[in-house]
């Protein structure tokens, strides 16, 4: 298409454009590369990134970890549970075989349940973040560029969604939806529960991104390159997603990276309240809920999942902060 050729020429300042004639002795760098360099120089962000990668790999490789570790998340070791229902031995039954000890009562291995819980948690959080971001982008960009009554309607829906109390809505909708789809003798399948959770997050979570994108688009839509594209007869889809979107990636990336830890805690909160993932599916929220009553007698049961979710969320948040600093060095903290 000849159109894209015109576009690149017209927008010399485009982030994706490659300088044609670098001066000798100076290395020309694109804004993307500059951001990357700034991110590399940020030690906190890099450490967080490594922790994040570690957690993601661990979560994705959960079945592999199970194979190596040799214990399934549902296996019960009740012979290692004392008559008082607490694990035998020191610090919640920590041993060479059970690295993080055992759950009181049922005697399941905490380490492998944490690994699988990580997978559940990360899957829900990333899916929810991806879905909300995609929804937010589309609605924000359409509403910001088109304006008029479409903008009014979308903005009104955003205000409406923001006014609904999420937790109360979730508490009400979870049992209703499950009762609607499954009979009295059917177990609610785990994927369905997870699906409903992601749907709930998406329903309420897209508004932030949409507002952000809408604001950015309003500030960009009168710029020369958009005018030029319009003048060249570019279609709406082309203007929205080929012209405007590439200029919005920075704020979107930041909002995405900060949404993930938000959904990790959100998912844990729903499961803590008993409306998200339920036992026996391994999950952080369920584990922390169960372990609370053992804070005085078996603190290990609380410490391991507590520290794990703390580290996970902290790493995601610090990395998100670092990413924002790198992409937008002018913004003050």
């Amino acid at each position, binding site marked *: 298409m000849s159109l894209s050729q015109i576009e690149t020429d017209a927008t010399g300042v485009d982030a994706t454009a490659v300088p044609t004639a670098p001066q000798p002795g100076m290395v020309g760098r694109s804004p993307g590369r500059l951001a990357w360099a700034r991110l590399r120089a940020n030690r906190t962000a890099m450490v967080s990134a490594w922790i994040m990668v570690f957690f993601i790999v661990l979560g994705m490789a959960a079945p592999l970890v199970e194979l190596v570790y040799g214990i399934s998340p549902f296996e019960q070791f009740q012979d290692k549970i004392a008559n*008082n*229902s607490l694990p035998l*031995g020191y610090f919640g039954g920590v041993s060479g075989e059970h690295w993080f000890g055992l759950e009181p*009562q049922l005697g399941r291995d905490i380490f492998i349940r944490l690994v699988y819980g990580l997978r559940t948690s990360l899957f829900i959080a990333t899916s929810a973040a991806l879905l909300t971001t995609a929804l937010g982008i589309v609605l924000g960009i359409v509403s910001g560029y088109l304006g008029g009554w479409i903008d009014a309607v979308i903005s009104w829906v955003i205000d409406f969604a923001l006014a609904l109390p999420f937790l109360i809505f979730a508490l009400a909708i979870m049992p209703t939806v499950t009762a609607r789809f499954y009979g009295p003798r059917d177990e609610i399948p785990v994927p369905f529960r997870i699906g409903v959770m992601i749907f709930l997050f998406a329903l309420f979570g897209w508004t932030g991104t949409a507002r952000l994108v809408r604001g950015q688009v309003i500030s960009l839509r009168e710029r020369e390159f958009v005018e030029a594209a319009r003048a060249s007869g570019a279609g709406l889809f082309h203007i929205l997603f080929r012209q405007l979107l590439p200029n919005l990636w920075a704020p979107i990336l930041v909002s995405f990276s900060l949404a993930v830890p938000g959904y990790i805690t959100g998912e844990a909160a729903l499961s803590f309240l008993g409306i998200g993932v339920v036992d026996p599916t391994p999950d952080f929220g369920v584990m922390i809920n169960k372990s609370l009553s053992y804070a005085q007698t078996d603190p290990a049961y609380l410490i391991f999942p507590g520290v794990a979710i703390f580290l996970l969320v902290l790493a995601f948040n610090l990395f998100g902060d670092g990413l924002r600093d790198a992409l937008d060095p002018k913004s003050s903290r």
Partner: protein
Amino acid sequence: MRSRAILAAGGVLALTVALGACSENKNTDSDVDTDRVASGAIATDPKDSMGPAKAVEGAAKGGTFTVIRQTKISHMDPQRVYSFVGLNTAPLYARFLTTWKDDGKGNVTLVGDLAETPGVNVNKDCKVWEFKIKDGVKFEDGTAITSKEVAYGIARSFDPDLSGGPTYIQEWLANDAAFDTKWDFKANKTSLPPGLTTPDAKTLRFEFAKAHCDLPFAASLPATAPLPPAKDTGVELDNKPFSSGPYKLVKNTVGVEMLFERNEHWDANTDPVRNAYPDKFVYKFGPNAEAQTNRLIADGAEDQATLGWNGVDSSLVAKVAGDAALMGRTLREPTPSAWRLSINTQRVADLSVRQALNYAIDRPGMVKAAGGDLKVAALTTLMPPSTLGFKKFDAYPADIEKAKSTLAGKTPELVLVIGDDSGAQELGTQVKNNLEKAGFKITIKVIPADSKLDETKKKNNPWDLYLDSWAADWPSGAALLPVLFDGRTIKAEGNSNTSYINNDAINAEFDRVLALDPAAQAPEWAKLDERIMKELAPAVPLYADVMFVMQGSKVGGVYIDSIFGYPAFTRAFVKQ
């Protein structure tokens, strides 16, 4: 620098917590006497029913005894008392027709309280019963208690406005479950219900259309407390009952505090069970089990003569159990509250499947999943050990291989329904994993906990297995086996027979044993228990609850009563 100092402080704190928790958890059996043998008798000699109650060793008069409890007592009006806390508080301010002499270890004797003996079976057919009221029994204003006031107390329990109490005697007198339609209390306040008469001031006579050999037991519930018609304040009596016992309620701030002081007209010589050592009893409402336990562990000056009604909080059980000094201040006894895995026999009609379920269950694992041996004690019989005549047997000794061979290659797909409350899910997971080892395929269905009971009590409920509990109102098999397994009582909703078992031979056996003299019934119920398990296997007995309560260092004489399994205060005293 500041952030490093905070970091270091945090690290030290975390380390202390971790090290503090780093004591080894060893396997020790709790000393809850789960194999204790209950014995029961009905005292026919009037001397057994006379006071004073046997003195408690080391007890002294005086002091204020405090009970703390999370929520208020739902009813104080003796005719409406039916909660466990109410049943064990009522003896302080009310006397009944009969009552239990109880050593707190399962050995009970039914004696007369207001009555001289626990009832006379006039024609030996359990249809006509007579009670003679003792001399010298008085209300808090000094007036004598006669059969008229006892009869009035029973009559007012027909009032639908005064609901909440037990309904045995009303139903038996009216010979109808809808007793308030048979006799209207409000329209007949000066007369008595059909079948209830007072031939003279000392005699109370019951005449039933059908044999009710359990009347002496039913008469031990607070609903037989006396009340003079002039003192009947209707629903107001809930806030200020009129005392016939050793204490009277002098101050009642509803939901906050209740203060009992001595009733000087109570005569210890007429009372076979109440020692009434403390000068005052105080009930304080509000703190939850965790707060109660923490206060009692601290044993502060104002909590030393205190008992925490709601028991040792489950989060603190291991802490208390690990400390001999704290353990010395606890009471721990098995209760009559028995749990079973009910099998819906309408859906699981195959006896071999029900037997395989019984073989498959792993009770030590269930006890661990239910919170350990200070919470529950394993049970292999339908009747808990506290039942009179109890005989221990295990019709299906746990054996996974035996379960598999009983199934003979079948893989029954069963649905286990559990509530969504905490604790239920562990039990559900435990049962599922346990049974699947024997070849069952178990689906766990979670439903709202508050509707679970009502739903499983519906005859045509769609589930196969559910956890049920039952605590009988008196320790006789008659208050348990026919209630839970008589198929002729099955109705559309509100069934206690949640196994929906209906077997003619067993039903006939119920009728035969129920017609026997109460004393002769006890061994027969134990035999019938075993027969039901062997022939029908309508449920899997799991465990009985264990009562584990803590008290202050100056409390003495409190025991866990053998009837309901809750702390009883008739012998309580404050160490001086």
